[in-house]
């Protein structure tokens, strides 16, 4: 397959076939990652800038390892501690980055649309590693890839519950696009204060009762709760949240027998999910991390060796 996308901004840029292809390429890198020497020279000489204007150790490390295992040179830029700190506009940031002539920029930014802003202005590939509340496509792909390792290619007939702060979650938005495209049914559960406006028009079912929402589901994706949501008046307190929307053993009894549990991390143990469940046999949390490296290797490989520049 020829990869002719310049940028990865969100899942909806890809079709089902292309997503399948990302998974196939990731399969090959899963194998590489099991070797004693986990390095291949396919991206030798390519440079990848990791520009994280908002902190995220997890995603950044994952992309960094992915790049290095493909022999690309990776460079980290953070908003703090660089020239990009003081009142510099995003446009100037873009020009600064361009001047470094990277082959790809992996971008994390607090503002929805930041990745498309850079993509419109720069010649290199932009890989969106999370923009505001908008999209986190590599996370969605690794979530899908992780479930595929359990379920195989057929997502039809599967139901996935996404639980927690949907309103502010770029992971939820991208996961919903990906999972529905792959044929799974998606269910959301959250208090109304943490649901996005217009959610009733989304291709999902929505509920506010966790026990009901768990009924028969094949996988549950718990979202991280930003603890400041309580101060913003969206929740009474964390204890009540944990009691009402925290996932625990009793909920799993309602779910499908081999239900899988996922979380994009980092986990607030005892809030979104009971500590024991995070470590339980059905938990895929660590598989997600492992898959993340392989999927991001696949993405860097595809975007940096694309044959047609757009």
């Amino acid at each position, binding site marked *: 397959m020829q990869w002719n996308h310049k940028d990865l901004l969100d899942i909806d840029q890809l079709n089902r076939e292309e997503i399948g292809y990302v998974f196939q390429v990731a399969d090959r890198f899963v194998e590489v990652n099991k070797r004693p020497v986990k390095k291949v020279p396919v991206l030798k000489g390519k440079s990848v800038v990791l520009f994280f204007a908002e902190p995220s150790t997890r995603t950044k490390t994952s992309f960094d390892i992915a790049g290095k295992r493909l022999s690309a040179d990776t460079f980290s830029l953070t908003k703090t501690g660089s020239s990009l700190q003081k009142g510099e506009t995003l446009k100037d940031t873009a020009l600064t980055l361009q001047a470094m002539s990277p082959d790809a920029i992996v971008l994390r930014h607090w503002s929805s*649309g930041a990745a498309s802003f850079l993509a419109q202005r720069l010649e290199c590939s932009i890989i969106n590693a999370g923009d505001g509340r908008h999209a986190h496509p590599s996370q969605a792909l690794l979530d899908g890839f992780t479930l595929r390792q359990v379920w195989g290619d057929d997502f039809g007939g599967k139901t996935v519950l996404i639980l927690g702060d949907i309103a502010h979650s770029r992971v939820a938005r991208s996961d919903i696009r990906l999972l529905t495209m792959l044929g799974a049914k998606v269910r959301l559960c959250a208090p109304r204060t943490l649901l996005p406006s217009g959610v009733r028009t*989304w291709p999902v079912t929505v509920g506010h009762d966790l026990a009901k929402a768990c009924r028969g589901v094949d996988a549950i994706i718990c979202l991280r709760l930003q603890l400041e949501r309580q101060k913003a008046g969206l929740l009474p307190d964390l204890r009540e949240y944990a009691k009402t929307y925290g996932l625990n053993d009793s909920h799993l009894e309602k779910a499908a027998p081999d239900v899988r549990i996922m979380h994009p991390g980092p986990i607030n143990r005892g809030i979104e999910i009971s500590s024991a469940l995070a470590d339980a046999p059905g938990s895929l949390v660590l598989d997600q991390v492992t898959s993340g490296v392989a999927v991001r290797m696949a993405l860097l490989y595809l975007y940096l060796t694309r044959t047609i520049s757009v």
Partner: protein
Amino acid sequence: MAAPQSILRNVIWLDQPMDLLIDQGTIMGLVPVDQGREITPLERDMDGQGAWLLPSLIDAHVHLREPGQEYKETIATGLQAALGGGFGQVMCMANTDPVNDHAQVTEYILETAMKTHPMGPRVRPVGALTKGLAGKELAPMAELARAGCVAFSNDGVPVGDNDLFRRSMEYAADLGLKVIDHCEDPTLSGHGVMNEGVLSGQLGLKGSPWVAETLHVARDIMLAEYLNIPVHLAHISCKESVEQILVAKEKGLPVTAETCAHYLVWDETMVQGYNFLAKVHPPLRTREDVMALRRAVKEGVIDILVTDHAPHADFEKETTMDEAPNGISGLDTALSLYASLVRDKVLTREDIVTRCALRPAEIFNLEVNRFAPGNRADFVLFDPDHAWIVEPSTMLSKGKNTPCMGTTLLGKVIAHYLKGQLAYTL
């Protein structure tokens, strides 16, 4: 009738071809075209070639940025854009730096306008409602009125304190001037960057709901009723606000309202692709809101049209939706957009004259040319078929921030006369 100094032949006034007779900067008459009319000797005998004749328009809501943010706009550039856009008087909001909350700022604005545009357009400053627009203490409104302010407003920074807002209405009423309110409950609008709804949910942008606006529209209407004091509601953007205003008007309450060209032409889908040029405050709403506003303008529920001209520098606007400042630069394009609504049979030429000149003059007690003998000969010739591309070089404002950047508009002011003198020509 004494012989006029000049004649402008063959212009379209409302729906009639007319000849306009002018003498010493005043109107002598506006009379049906008569090919055989001979008036000699004339200093000038011009052919209007079927252009629309409009009185010089009034824009009751602009931001001129000077003093303090001259990199966005100056009084000179703002007035030049007004002139080219067909506006002979503009009411400039107080959110300058320093804020227009004391006489020296008002005087500075008036003097700078006089210096740069001695013939006009005229600037009509709007004084701050509260000191520093902080919403804590009343601004010295009497001093501001004496210095030349024609109304008061906290525009841009809604007053959340209901009692203070009430007191401001009372105090302004003693001065015979109106309060213009930017209707928005700041606790409900939060830091929304677009209309709250399906699209904001999809784009992952923080939304500002219509109820934030309508709640303050309702508050102001109730205060106007309770106090029997007029209030003018700024840049109305949604259907529900229109419904409140309609009820108020049916009750005969002293409430007037305005909306802007952009709310009549564009809806929230303009922000697709995170288009910072379509970020405006209040936000562009749904198609349903657009249609409701059009009806409201047509029926007079919305009294006047304004631009809410809000120029910004490119480097500020060109960023994400979260970071870009609110506002559309409107003086250059407003009349072309209104003309497009005439072409689409949403408005008539008469509606433009009423909503952009006669009503604003009534509401804010300003002079206006009604083409009656003795009126100041302030008028505009507008060619409705003149196509122009909106680009930085064709806009006179320093602010190039408009969602129609790069598009072709039909209709342009070809001449603007103030006191019968040609002040601007294309």
